[in-house]
């Protein structure tokens, strides 16, 4: 029986294992050094905040693995012996494989800041980070202030976590406005304001110079590059993005760049070795996606796809239309299709934007200024239907069509106030058009996209 070994029990590795099991009776082993059982990394924050217990982050009950004959091995792989198809573990044990799937994920970026390895300096990625945070920031007496370095999604989540225990937070963001490499300025400014409403000391255009230690080798303060200001703190969170966690592959003959290089079939340069999830780097970017996509659902999709290949139905990895979501403190964010920030906007791309006068709600629709083709939408504080936008993108609808049928796409809970009329009125006014909002139709909503 063929032995499939998967290194990494995150969403990519586990999706691959589940789908291989669905389609075959191959022997499957998942190896992990972090935890025995799969848990949802995205939910770690809720454990610290007291919304959940760690066990709630585990999507499958513990009996699931045995019942599905998926072996779990705890251990740290120190070397891959490609020639003998064997894994070497830190405790000198060995495991041989017929096919190897690398789903080893990422680790937090460190940019060589002085003091970056001090006690009390941490990322927010691994389960271990949660213990560290609990140790160094259990409450606002032990941790009188925390400094977070790096204004991305993990940074704002870490700030939210610390604020849930009333710990003062200083948030250093390199950009001139929060996440404005990704978000249009309307949205980025909305989030700036919201961060401050949550009593987070947001410092824009600010870089870290160094982290200083006290006499015990524990973090004492940080120094700001621009001003030389010293900010005293007990915890420093480094959240300036993630990098593939592939140091252990350095000496193997597996081709790596920033991540493990793979083709569209998720194959590495060595036969029978594959890479999926955060650690996989496409030779050539797919569409407008990045070569490395550290996103939950792409990990899952690569796992689903590779399982097909492994089970004899060789399948190319073809992610569909881009979508994503996040939550910035109290504000939910969803995106479908491509909306680039002003900084990265394409030549033909233009915005239509609407913002609620009082509440934290706004949208940006991106469209082609020549053809009016709908390119993508960002929504803040409004939920949208994935299926509808996926269908519209596939059908290459134009912005007028999207606005006319916008009510079909709304996914807010029942009784919520809807804003389609205001949104479309604004577009009509700006563009001298006469679009009328169509009433929501179940028939349209539940009709499958034409291509299916």
């Amino acid at each position, binding site marked *: 029986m063929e032995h499939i070994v998967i290194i990494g029990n995150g*969403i990519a590795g586990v999706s691959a294992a589940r*789908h291989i099991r*669905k389609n075959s009776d191959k022997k499957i082993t998942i190896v992990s050094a972090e935890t025995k059982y799969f848990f*949802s990394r*995205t*939910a770690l924050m*809720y454990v610290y*905040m*007291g*919304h*959940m*217990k760690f066990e*709630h*982050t*585990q*999507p499958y*009950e513990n009996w699931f693995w045995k019942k599905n004959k998926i072996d779990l091995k705890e251990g740290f792989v120190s070397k891959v012996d490609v020639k003998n198809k064997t894994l070497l573990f830190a405790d000198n044990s060995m495991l041989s494989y017929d096919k190897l799937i690398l789903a080893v994920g990422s680790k937090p970026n460190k940019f060589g800041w002085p003091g970056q390895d001090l006690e009390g300096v941490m990322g927010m990625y691994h389960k271990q980070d949660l213990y560290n945070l609990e140790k160094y920031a259990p409450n606002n007496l032990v941790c009188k202030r925390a400094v977070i370095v790096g204004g991305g999604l993990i940074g704002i989540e870490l700030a939210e976590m610390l604020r*849930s225990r009333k710990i003062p937070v200083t948030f250093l963001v390199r950009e001139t406005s929060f996440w404005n490499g990704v978000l249009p300025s309307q949205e980025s400014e909305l989030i700036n304001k919201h961060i401050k*409403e*949550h009593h987070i000391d947001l410092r824009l255009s600010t870089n870290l110079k160094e982290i200083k230690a006290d006499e015990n080798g524990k973090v004492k303060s940080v120094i700001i590059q621009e001003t030389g200001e010293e900010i005293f703190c007990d915890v420093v969170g480094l959240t300036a993005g993630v990098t593939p966690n592939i140091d252990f592959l350095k000496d193997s003959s597996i081709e790596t760049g920033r991540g493990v290089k793979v083709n569209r079939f998720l194959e590495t340069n060595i036969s029978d070795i594959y890479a999926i999830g955060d650690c996989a780097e496409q030779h050539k970017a797919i569409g407008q996606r990045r070569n490395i996509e550290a996103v*939950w*659902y792409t990990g*899952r*999709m690569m796992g*689903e*796809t590779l399982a*097909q290949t492994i089970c004899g139905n060789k*399948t*190319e990895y*073809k*992610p*569909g*239309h881009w*979508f994503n*979501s*996040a*939550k910035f*403190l*109290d504000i*939910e964010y*969803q995106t479908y299709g491509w909306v680039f920030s002003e900084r990265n906007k394409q030549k033909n791309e233009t915005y239509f934007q609407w913002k609620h006068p009082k509440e934290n709600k706004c949208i940006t629709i991106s469209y082609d200024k020549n053809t009016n083709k709908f390119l993508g939408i960002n929504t803040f504080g409004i*939920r*949208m*239907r*994935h*299926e509808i936008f*996926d269908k519209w993108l*596939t059908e290459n609808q134009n912005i007028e069509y999207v606005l006319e049928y916008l009510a079909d796409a709304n*996914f807010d*809970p*029942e*009784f*919520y*106030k809807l804003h389609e009329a205001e949104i479309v009125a604004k577009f009509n006014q700006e563009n001298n058009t006469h679009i009328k909002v169509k009433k929501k139709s*179940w*028939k349209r*909503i*539940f009709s499958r996209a034409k*291509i*299916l």
Partner: protein
Amino acid sequence: MKIIQKLGIIVFLIGLTIFTGSIFLGNFSLTEKELDTYITEKGYKNEVIKEELLKAIVAQEKINIFQFSDKARTAFKNANKHYDKLIAKYNAEKNWSKKGQQYQYKINGKPHTLSYQLAKKSGSGFIKENTGLMWFLTFGLGIIGALLFIIPNLVLLGKPGIKNDGIYLESSTNRGWMAWLVLVYLVTFYLVLYFMADYAVNWTFILDPISKALNGGEASQWFVYGFLYCTIMLTMGVRMFIKYRHNKYQIVRTISVLFFQIVFAFLIPEIMTSLNMPGYDFKNAFPLDYDFFFDWNIDNLRNSGGIGLFILVWGIVLTLIIVPVMVYFFGKRWYCSWVCGCGGLAETLGDPYRQHSNKSLNAWKLERWLIHSVLIFSLVMTIVTLYCYFSGTQSFLGIKSQWIKDTYSFLIGAWFAGVIGTGFYPIFGNRVWCRFGCPLAAYLGLVQRFKSRFRITTNGGQCISCGNCSTYCEQGIDVRSYAQKGENIVRSSCVGCGICSAVCPRGVLKLENGPEEGRINPKEILLGNDVDLMSFINNK
């Protein structure tokens, strides 16, 4: 603000202490004349009972309700013992006719109930004389204290949004000692209410004026329960309004359950009673309203003229037509989390404990066995009762009508729905009864599962498996297991409270009523992956 909250807790605890302590107060003693009236009213033929009660509870000095209850119950026991001895004697003598005669002298009824009836007549003291003050010191302080604790959260909880910070860090909401303390209090309360009502007679005195104003009669323990129920739901409803103020579905739903509890379950029946009609809760559907087809209720309704007949027809139409039709259009939520009183308490008082429902597969298996067994039990009981009612017999298929009614009332009505259902909120979560026991929920669930337009839609591939939805599902549904597969959630137990959708950080879940086609949509590959692969796998 924090100080106001602390003050609130203190005021609340003072109110609770006085409320609890009040049962130890007062004197209980009858005059001989009162006793005579009581015995005549009851029509007891027992010749010993007067003497026994005279000895025990007439012209006593300063005995509290516990001593009174003890003496009264002993008196009843002795009075019956006298005839039991005679029965044994004639039995031994094989004097059957004499033996048979003795039974008419025996006094039927539960000892605590008999004791309650006497205590209600015989109480005196501070509480009875100062009902207004006592109301303020118990209910009043409780309400004020609770509100002082709840209202500052408008500021303390910060901006509108999901407010679950610290739930698993607090003893009261993480099964700590505080939760166990609340459990012990609630369980004790229900045991007293159901089985030792005489101990709670002082509470009925406090509410006598309100009861008289509403229905013209004195308050019973059930009036106390109903009043307390409404008060708690209203106060904890305020908490819901603050906690979920960003979510209009929750606001509207909470207003709805409060309305149906206060108007339908409480005010209308009381007013009907004052108009000499049978007090009836028009929203309480059989088989949750398990005694609707009991002989005494049918008799009562048949003897109440037009309104009685209307109630009889309404009750049947409600269960057979209105309930399933509404479930078809809106899901069982229209009843369980918008209308029902049990659901109303669960969604207000129980909300802080919703995360404790067990999400394991084994719990789901237990749920299906248990809830459907109770449904069958209630139906068998009703069939037996109705058969006996119309045929005039005592039993059907070897099941005694009285026995099965008593067993159901005791096991399901009192223990399951009350003591366990509510008493265990802090440990097992707020929907234990609704999930494992309620026969109406079982019936609604079957309709919801097989013939309904309701579902919780999963939003394509947006789920990140965080587990907030499953954690906060009060019915123990592993919502995530569906959401992360891109499947809609169609489960018989879902009461449509909408919290999974509220707590989802990625906007993945939406409760909605739509076409039946495609409602249940098992998938292997989620939206977002290569369309060829999706259609290949999902259509294979």
